[in-house]
């Protein structure tokens, strides 16, 4: 079973990193890295201008944390594109391209197939984002002379959990649809429209922070530097990092999404008939 898993994983991993999608994502990530590096070099001396005047006397550590917050803010959106590009067609393409006739008839457990493909998609998503993380570390160390490794490691750990959850989520949508385009569009619309709209409605109408939404939990990637939730309108402002309970809460939300969506995808694929 494990050799089966590894063989399928290797096969799809190679497919992914040889695909045009991978290079497109690499270009997007590289572009984002260049833009953020430019911002870091040009804006590091003026980063306090972002803040209310009361907090203008900013220490070097906080100035650096604020800059890392900006890097992480962009970083938390990149996995959405990467994982949607890699994962949305993962199952639906097998139906649309009719490769499912061949793949699903192989003597391979469909659960193993889904899990191996899932892990391959997660791996290439993480690899594509390494460019961004590497650029961040280099730029921050060059400009500030040091880096807050503790917060950086928390942010990276949260990023990996987010990628696991988001990839599982897009796998579930991919397993529901028989056409790639529908899977792509639904993934983007659910994440960027439905989640954000529900978040706004619950917060503005009911003053409730929708911690259970994936986009809300993903803010922990930047909130480990400074605990400002960019998905919530508020005048509250302080430079403090998110506490351990916030980190655990987001981690639990990611784990729930990962398990629920993966199991959902497995159930759908196991019962799917290739027509």
């Amino acid at each position, binding site marked *: 079973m494990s050799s089966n898993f590894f063989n399928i994983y290797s096969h799809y991993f190679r497919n992914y990193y040889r695909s045009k999608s991978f290079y497109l994502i690499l270009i997007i990530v590289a572009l984002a890295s260049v833009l953020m590096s430019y911002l870091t070099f040009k804006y590091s001396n003026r980063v306090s201008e972002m803040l209310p*005047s*009361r*907090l*203008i*006397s900013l*220490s070097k*550590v*906080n100035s650096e*944390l604020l800059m890392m917050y900006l890097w992480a803010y962009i970083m938390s959106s990149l996995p959405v594109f990467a994982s949607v590009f890699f994962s949305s067609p993962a199952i639906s393409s097998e139906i649309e391209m009719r490769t499912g006739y061949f793949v699903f008839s192989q003597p391979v457990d469909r*659960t193993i197939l889904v899990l191996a493909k899932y892990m391959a998609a997660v791996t290439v998503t993480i690899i594509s984002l390494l460019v961004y993380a590497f650029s961040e570390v280099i730029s921050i160390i060059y400009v500030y002379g040091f880096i807050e490794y503790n*917060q950086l490691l928390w942010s990276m750990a949260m990023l990996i959990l987010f990628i696991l959850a988001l990839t599982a989520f897009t796998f579930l949508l991919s397993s529901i649809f028989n056409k790639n385009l529908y899977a792509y569009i639904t993934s983007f619309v659910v994440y960027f429209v439905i989640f954000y709209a529900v978040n706004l409605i619950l917060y503005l109408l009911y003053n409730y*922070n929708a*911690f*259970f939404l994936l986009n809300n939990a993903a803010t922990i990637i930047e909130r480990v530097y400074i*605990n400002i939730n960019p998905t919530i309108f508020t*005048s*509250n*402002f*302080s*430079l*403090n*990092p998110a*506490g*351990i*309970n*916030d980190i*655990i*809460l987001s981690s*639990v*939300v990611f*784990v*729930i999404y990962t*398990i*629920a969506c993966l*199991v959902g995808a*497995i*159930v759908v694929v*196991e019962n799917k008939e290739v027509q």
Partner: protein
Amino acid sequence: MNSKMKLLVIVIVAAAIIIPASIYAYNLYLTTQVGPANFIPSNSTFVLKINQNGSSYYIFGSDKGFAILTPINSEIQMQKSNLTFNNTSIPLTKYANIGGFEVYQITLYNIIDGYLTNQSSRYLSSYPINDQFIQNLTNESLYLYEPYSNHLIVGTLGEIKNTIYAYNHGTNFSNKYKYISSKGLAEFYINSNNETIWGNISNTSIYVFVHLTNGNISQLYNETSYLRDLGVKVIKLNSSTLELIIPVSSISKQF
């Protein structure tokens, strides 16, 4: 194992993880709403909450010292280089970044000096202070930081570090906040090795709950009739628990 059975097992295992995880996440969410409980250390030996004009002030301490958590309002305001308290301006010195929080230092000298300057246009330096004790005292410092929007924590350095540790590591007062969550004039919580005492004070009465983890409280049985004579209502009394209500009128009678 056939396909249906395998799926059933997968779904059951997933549900066994997801359902308790969801309940845990919801309970955790309730504790992550940033508020005073997140910054009061769980090992505080005393916590006093005072409710006044819709605002709550918290005084708490441990063997590390004491601290006060107060809202920033018209009486207390924090600017980038000074703290204004009742129109008295006290200069702030940046001390250090502790656990992600900018901590500032103020000396007692500056507090007293600012107060005297505000009160009578005189300066502390104009007072001939010969007493070494007073000189040493005025050299003592308090530390403060903004834990979350529009609030300040002021206290000794040890307790300030304690509050930041409590927030960053989750060892805070969230689980014990129920002890001081009523809306009377004040609530209190006292914890020592042997006993936990909590209660609240209203306009008409004082509610006290005493719980002993070791020892025996039952010797108070003989005193209950005396307490009742004083107007104290003993709700519960056994070997480890004493619960009573003291009417304010019974206290005023004694004086």
